[in-house]
C-alpha cells in the first residue's frame, strides 16, 4: 500500500464515518470486512466504475448491483460516487479496510483469528472462548475461526496487537527456545 494513498483513504474513511457512522454497527462489521477483502482480492470489479463513456443511470445501477452483491447499505453509494468523481475509486478497498478499523475502534471491539487444532463442535465452546477473551481484554470480541493442525492440540487467538495461545505447539516452542 502506497503511504500517501493510505493517508488519503484514511481521510475518506474518517469523513464517511463522521457522516454515516451511526449506520455502521458491530453487526455490519463482517459485511464491511468481507466487502473490503472481496474488492482487494478481485479489484477488476471496480474496473467498470472507471469507464468514462457510461451513462449516469447505468452507472448508478452498477453501483446498486455492487452494493447488493457486497451487502453494503445504500449510504455507501455516496462514498463510491464521491470516489468516482475524484477519480480515486481504486481507493475503495482501502477505505473499507479503514472503516473496519474505525468500527472496531468506535465500538471497542477486537478482531481475533482463533485457530484450533480441531473443529469446534458446538457454538457454546466458541462463546466460551470469546467470553474468556472479553474478560481478558475488556473489549467486544469479533472472532473468526480457522483450523490449524500444526497446533497439535489447543487454541491460538491472534489479534493485530495481541496473542493468546495455549497449545502443544507453543509449549514445544517455549521448550525449544529455552534449550537452544
Amino acid at each position, binding site marked *: 500500500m502506497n503511504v500517501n494513498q493510505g493517508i488519503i483513504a484514511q481521510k475518506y474513511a474518517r469523513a464517511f464515518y463522521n457522516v454515516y457512522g451511526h449506520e455502521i454497527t458491530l453487526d455490519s462489521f463482517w459485511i464491511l470486512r468481507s466487502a473490503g477483502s472481496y474488492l482487494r482480492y478481485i479489484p477488476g470489479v471496480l474496473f467498470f466504475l472507471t469507464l468514462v463513456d457510461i451513462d449516469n443511470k447505468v452507472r448508478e445501477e452498477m453501483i446498486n448491483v455492487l452494493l447488493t452483491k457486497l451487502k453494503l447499505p445504500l449510504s455507501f453509494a455516496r462514498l463510491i460516487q464521491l470516489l468516482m468523481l475524484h477519480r480515486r475509486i481504486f481507493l475503495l478497498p482501502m477505505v473499507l479496510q479503514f472503516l473496519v478499523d474505525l468500527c472496531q475502534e468506535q465500538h471497542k471491539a477486537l478482531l481475533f483469528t482463533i485457530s484450533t487444532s480441531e473443529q469446534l463442535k458446538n457454538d457454546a465452546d466458541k462463546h466460551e472462548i470469546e467470553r474468556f477473551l472479553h474478560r481478558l481484554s475488556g473489549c467486544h470480541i469479533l472472532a473468526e475461526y480457522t483450523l490449524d493442525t500444526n497446533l497439535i*492440540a489447543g*487454541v491460538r487467538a491472534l489479534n493485530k496487537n495481541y496473542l493468546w495461545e*495455549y497449545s502443544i505447539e507453543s509449549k514445544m516452542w517455549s521448550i525449544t527456545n529455552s534449550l537452544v
Partner: protein
Amino acid sequence: MYDTTVILFWIFRWLNIIAILLVAAYFFRKKLLHAIKDKIAQRRNFFQSLYQQLEKTVLKNVSINKSIDVQQQDSAQLLKKAEQWSHAVAIVQREYEEVYEQRLKKMIRYREEQLEHFAMQQACKDIVPIALKDAKATLKKKFEKSEVQTKYMNDLISFMKKN
C-alpha cells in the same frame, strides 16, 4: 831554662798556624761560604717546598677523606634507598604476581566454563533437535486420537470458564 829559639820557634809556629788559619778562613769566606750558603738556601727552599707540598698533600688528604666520608654516607643512603626500593619492588612484584595468578585462574575458570558451555551447546545442537522432533512426533501421534484431542480441548475450555 828555656831556649829563646825554641820559644821563638813556637811563637812563629803558632803565628804561622794562625796566619794559615786566617788565610784559610779568608779563602773559605771569600770562595766557599757563599756557595755553601746558596746550597743551604737551595736545600732549605727545597725542604720548604717539600714541606708545603706535604702540607698541601695532607690538606688534600683530609679533604679527600672528608669527601670519602661524604661519599660513603651518600652511598650508605643510596644503599638504604636501594634496599627500600628493592623491597618496594619486591612487594609490587609479589602483588603483581598475585594479581596475575588470580587473573590466570579466572581466565582458566572462564575458559573451562566456556568449554563446558560449548560442550553443552554442542550437545544441545546435536541432541535437542532430535529430542524435540521425537517429542513432537510422539505428541502428534498421541493427539491424533479424537478422544484425547477432545479431552484436551474440553479441559482448556473449562479452564477458560473458571478464569
